[in-house]
């Protein structure tokens, strides 16, 4: 399962607006996309905004993105891109 670690860089963190963007992005791919905080055990579905918020991933937190499916590589690249660009907030 393709996987990568990225850092949350926007000052507000993975809050409601950013999490909403991630949910919409995840909906563009057939693959299942999972996210966890690198320092915590819980893995959540990137299609659930409330699960994403519950990570409480603030600015500076590292998250692991795990993707499974036939378009996994594209999905992983897209998620890593939106996170590292700070969800367009920086």
């Amino acid at each position, binding site marked *: 399962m393709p996987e990568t670690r990225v850092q949350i860089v926007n000052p507000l963190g993975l809050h409601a607006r950013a999490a909403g963007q991630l949910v919409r992005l995840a909906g563009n791919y057939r693959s299942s996309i999972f996210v966890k905080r690198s320092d915590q055990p*819980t893995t959540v579905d990137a299609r659930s905004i409330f*699960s994403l918020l519950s*990570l409480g991933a603030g600015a500076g937190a590292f998250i692991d993105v795990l993707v499974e499916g036939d378009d996994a590589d594209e999905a992983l690249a897209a998620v890593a891109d939106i996170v590292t660009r700070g969800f367009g907030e920086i």
Partner: protein
Amino acid sequence: MFKNEFPGLGKKVGLIGIPLGFGAGKPGSELGAEAMRMSRTRNASLAANIAELGYEVNDHGDVDIIKPSRPAEPDENPKYAEEMSATFANVSEALGRILSSEEIPVILGGDHSIAIGSFSAIAGHYKDKGKEIGLIWFDAHADINTPETSLTGNVHGMPLAALLGHGDPRFTDLEGFSPKIRPEYCAHVGGRDLDLGEKRRVHGFGMRDHFFTMTDIDRKGMYQCVLDAVWIASQAPGGFAVTFDVDMIDPVFAPGSGTLVRGGATYREAHLALEAIAETGKMVSFEIVEVNPLLDQSNITVELACELILSALGKTIL
């Protein structure tokens, strides 16, 4: 099996009643726990409905309440603090047992003063495990009075202040640490009736943006307010507790409560909030308070309370 068919699979729920009603100004909330247990939703008991979600359910009965055997003194403020703090020792013992068995406590009130004992016990349990927890508080009132600002001395108007470390030491010092909750991990939803002293306190604690009042809900919508409340409570590393006063809901839908205020959440807004919280998977306990069967009409508030418990535990429409 469809997604969400059994949200409780592999998890346990510990039902516990805290039939304490002498923190309120009117009698009746002490009957709430038993009414919820007796109520039938779709012809099944509360415990059976929770079990249908896949949870293993253990009903631990009711906590022993140390009832006052005297009327309150005219200037007694807080009222019945001795009896209450003695009862909270029993609450702590019961919740400690439930949490040690890895059960999710589902706490049936009782008036809202019980949150002092219940959240103190839960926060203490997680503190011992090295984890701080958050708190989401649903209520028409801020419950952030202290004896200095309370006009009545009724403790059900003081629990949030006590948990934040303010008020009578018999409440703030429970479990040997204070505060039980840091303001940055605490969100409040549904407020619409605050005393002047409470408003000053919310602003003074720097918590304005953690209070999602009915005005905020009117403007941003319940969905957005709950997103923000979950974000706040999720800053705590250990998950979050939820305490739900049924007077947060509009009296049209929940008339059976002692301190009704018009302009509350609708039936669906209340479910929306708790369905969202269930989706996070981070709720460590759920408490429902101020259900007063003596003031109810055709049992609708009791039945609504039972339905809300199921939403908080992951029941979905489809």
